[in-house]
C-alpha cells in the first residue's frame, strides 16, 4: 500500500437539526486512495455525517455545524467558501439512481456545462472519459443520444457516478450507492469502487455489512450520533475493540 495522504478531516464536529444534536464530537480522517465505509444502525448519524462533508446539510433550515472540516488545508465551513466549487471537489452519489430526464450524453455533460464548458470536442472527450471510468462506456457508446431513463437501474447508477466524475472531483461521497440494485449491478459498483480509489478519496455509507467489508480499507462505526470505533476494515470485522461494534456487526443489537 502507498503512504497515507490526508485528504479530508473532521475535528470534533457537532451537528444540530434545530435543538437536536445529531452528531457529537466526531473526528475522522480520510486519506487519498482509500475507501472509508461508514456503518451503523438507522438514525446513527452516518448519512448526516456524510452530507456534512460537502455541506449538503446547508440546505436544511435550522441545521448547524460546530467544529471544523478540512479539505486539504481549507476549512470548508469558513465563511466565504464557494459551496458550488466545494461540491465540485467533493462529489456525491445517492442511494437511488437519479438521472436527469435528458440524454445519456447530456446527463454526464451537465456539470461541465454548468461550469461553463462549451467546446463540443472537450465535452465529448470528458463524457467518454467519465463513462469509461464508471465502467459504462461499452454499454452506452452507441446510444449516447438516447434517454438516460431507458437504462437499467444498475446502468443509471453508474451513469450518476459518471456524472459525478465528469467535473473531476477529488473526493467521492456515496450514500448507499448499491442498495437499490440487484447483486450483479451491486458487484459492478463494488468493482468500480476498487478502480476509482486509484484516483480518488472515497467515503461510502452502507447498510450492507458485507459490502463495507468488501469495498473499504477503513471502517467507522457510528451509534447514536457518536463515532464509536474506527479501524482497518479487517480489524473491525474480525476483532472489533468495542462491544457495541461487536454487537452491531454480529447482529446482536437491541
Amino acid at each position, binding site marked *: 500500500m502507498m503512504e497515507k495522504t490526508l485528504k479530508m478531516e473532521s475535528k470534533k464536529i457537532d451537528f444540530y437539526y434545530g435543538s437536536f444534536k445529531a452528531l457529537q464530537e466526531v473526528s475522522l480522517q480520510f486519506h487519498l486512495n482509500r475507501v472509508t465505509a461508514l456503518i451503523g444502525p438507522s438514525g446513527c448519524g452516518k448519512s448526516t455525517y456524510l452530507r456534512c462533508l460537502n455541506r449538503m446539510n446547508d440546505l436544511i433550515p435550522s441545521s448547524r455545524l460546530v467544529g471544523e472540516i478540512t479539505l486539504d488545508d481549507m476549512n470548508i465551513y469558513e465563511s466565504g467558501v464557494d459551496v458550488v466549487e466545494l461540491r465540485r471537489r467533493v462529489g456525491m452519489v445517492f442511494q437511488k439512481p437519479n438521472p436527469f430526464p435528458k440524454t445519456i450524453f447530456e446527463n454526464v455533460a451537465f456539470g461541465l456545462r454548468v461550469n461553463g464548458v462549451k467546446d463540443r470536442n472537450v465535452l465529448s472527450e470528458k463524457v467518454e472519459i467519465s463513462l469509461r471510468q464508471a465502467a459504462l462506456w461499452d454499454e452506452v457508446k452507441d446510444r449516447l443520444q438516447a434517454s438516460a431513463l431507458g437504462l437499467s437501474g444498475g446502468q443509471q447508477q453508474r451513469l450518476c457516478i459518471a456524472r459525478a466524475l465528469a467535473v473531476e472531483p477529488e473526493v467521492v461521497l456515496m450514500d448507499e450507492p448499491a442498495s437499490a440494485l440487484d447483486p450483479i449491478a451491486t458487484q459492478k459498483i463494488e468493482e468500480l469502487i476498487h478502480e476509482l480509489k486509484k484516483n480518488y478519496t472515497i467515503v461510502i455509507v452502507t447498510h450492507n*455489512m*458485507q459490502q463495507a*467489508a468488501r469495498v473499504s480499507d477503513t471502517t467507522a462505526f457510528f451509534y447514536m450520533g457518536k463515532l464509536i470505533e474506527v479501524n482497518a476494515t479487517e480489524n473491525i*470485522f*474480525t*476483532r*472489533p475493540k468495542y462491544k457495541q*461494534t*461487536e454487537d452491531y*456487526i*454480529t*447482529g*446482536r443489537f*437491541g
Partner: protein
Amino acid sequence: MESRFHKELEELKMTILQMAALTERALEKAVHSLLVRDTEVAKEVVRGDQEVNSLELEIDRLCLKLLALEQPMARDLRFIIGTMRIAVDLERIADQAVNIAERTIFLASRPPLRFNPAMQQLGDTAIDMLKSVISAFINESEEQAIDVCQMDDTADELNVKILKDLMDYMLHDTPAIERSVQTIIAARCLERAADQATNIAESVIFIIKGVNIKHHCQRT
C-alpha cells in the same frame, strides 16, 4: 433477542461439546485399558472412534453452511473458524486413543514388563489437559487455556523420561524389546494428544481474543 443464526451457533457448540465428551471418554478408557491391561475396554475404544469421526464431518458441514449462508463477522466468525480447528484436533486425539488401545491389545496378550514406566503420570497429564481445555472452551476462559499450554512441558518431559527409561531397560531385558517399543509408541501417542490439547487451547484463545498465539506468534 436470540436470532435464528445464533441458535444455529448454539447447536454447533453443542455438537462440538458432544464430540469433546466422546474424545475425553475415549482417551480415559485407552489410558485405563493400557494401565490395567484390559483388552475389552481397548476394543470399545477402537469401535467408538467411528462416532467421533462422523461428528467431525457433521461439524465441518455445519461450519461450511454457516460461513456460506450467514457470512458471520467478528466473534461469530472466530467461533466458527476456531470450532473447525478444534474438531480436527479432537479427531486426532481420538485417533491417538485408538492407537493406544491397539498397543494395549498387543501388550495384554504378552507378559507384563518387569519395569513400570511413568505411564500413569503421562496419561493423567494428557487427560487433565484435555479436560481443562474443554472447560476453557465452555467457560471462555483465557486463563485456563494458557494453563493448558503450560502443562504441555510436563507431558514432553514425562515422554522423554519414559523413552530413556525403556531404552535402558531394553538393554538388560532383550526379550522385552518388542513390548518396550510398543509401550514407547503408546507414550508417544499420549504426548501427541497433549500437543493436540495445546492446539485446542490456542484455538480457544483465538476465539476469545482474536489473536493467534500459535508458534508463539504474538502479532496482533
